[in-house]
């Protein structure tokens, strides 16, 4: 075990994966010698050579197109998109190609070896092009897996699972926690299953659901609520696609109440799917409407970032409203 921040955990996962299997390659804008703008790929080119860790030209659709091709050839590409906000030029390659590759070919070909890494999320004064949480845009796409870790330990274990999972995975990293989150992380290989949510904290009065950086926000809100004597159960989805509805439903059947807290703008954020599904699965157990705490339905602002964000206070208010309904 070692103390690592989230970036170091990512770097360690990449290192372990590259050492283990020489089909693993790492590429993207500035990821080579420079180690990426956040330094997640630091030292990998030096260690594994330019053919396994390299810069690409500045073209996201090309990065993912290239990665699809390399994965279809049997490679295990780990492609970096510098910011989640810049993933959209690659949307066609991801949604129409990556996700449908195996299905359309009748399993003659697949790009299961592909992992796409990208930092996402707000709280870094980045305005609308360095703050978005675009997971929901991808969650309507059968064939993809989407994974978001909440801390360094989870990051390493989930990334290693993603790299070696026989399906393409979009791995989104909460960038505001890159250096802020520090924890104990094993130096060797370990994995955390994809598609399984985790009950981070057990409780009996209300279920709180989130993923990624938002778990920290939810934990703070839960602390406030506990002071009022409310026992909160916290669930980290970890995987957005496929997602673990059963774990959430089970919890809600116990607590009768659900608050989802998410960074993205409200309408059609992933919380909508969670709410829609859980009201079906746990209908007769609901004591109050499923509440969603989200960003506003605007582009991500700059000057009013603090007001915009779905913070712990807004989440706490939602918990109270749910209980007093």
């Amino acid at each position, binding site marked *: 075990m070692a103390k690592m921040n989230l970036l170091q955990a990512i770097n360690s996962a990449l290192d372990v994966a590259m050492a283990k299997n020489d089909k693993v390659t790492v590429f993207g804008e500035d990821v080579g010698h420079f180690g990426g703008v956040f330094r997640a790929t630091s030292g990998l080119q030096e260690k594994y050579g330019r053919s396994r860790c390299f810069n690409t030209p500045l073209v996201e659709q090309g990065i993912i197109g290239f990665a699809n091709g390399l994965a279809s050839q049997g490679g295990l590409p780990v492609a970096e998109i510098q910011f989640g906000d810049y993933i959209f030029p690659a949307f066609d390659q991801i949604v129409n190609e990556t996700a449908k590759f195996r299905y359309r070919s009748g399993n003659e070909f697949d790009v299961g070896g592909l992992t796409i890494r990208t930092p996402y999320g707000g709280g870094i004064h980045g305005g609308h092009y360095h703050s978005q949480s675009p997971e929901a845009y991808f969650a309507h796409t059968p064939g993809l897996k989407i994974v978001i870790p909440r801390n360094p330990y989870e990051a390493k274990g989930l990334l290693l699972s993603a790299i070696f999972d026989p399906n393409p995975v979009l791995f989104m990293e909460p960038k505001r926690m890159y250096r802020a989150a520090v924890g104990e992380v094993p130096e060797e290989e370990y994995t955390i299953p994809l598609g399984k949510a985790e009950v981070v904290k057990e409780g009996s009065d209300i279920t709180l659901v989130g993923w990624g950086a938002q778990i920290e926000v939810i934990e703070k809100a839960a602390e406030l609520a506990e002071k009022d004597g409310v026992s909160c159960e916290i669930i980290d989805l970890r995987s957005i696609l496929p997602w673990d509805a059963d774990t959430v439903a089970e919890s809600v059947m116990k607590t*009768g109440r659900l608050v989802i807290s998410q960074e993205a703008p409200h309408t059609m954020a992933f919380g909508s799917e969670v709410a829609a599904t859980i009201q079906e699965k746990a209908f*007769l*157990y*609901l*004591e*109050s409407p499923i509440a969603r705490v989200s960003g506003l339905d605007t582009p991500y602002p700059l000057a009013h970032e603090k007001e915009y964000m779905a913070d712990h206070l807004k989440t706490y208010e939602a918990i109270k409203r749910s209980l007093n309904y």
Partner: protein
Amino acid sequence: ATEAPKAASQGKALASPAVRRRAREAGIDIAAVPGSGSKGRVLKEDIQSYVDGGK
């Protein structure tokens, strides 16, 4: 927006699904239960007293 703006339609009840479950479990038609909450909302206590009253 989540506030109930008006009473339930004829033959229907204003109640949370969890209260509906309690009515089901008690084997009673929730539409017949007088609600003590705002706009006639049926609360779980209402189910209880309906059941008790019925006994």
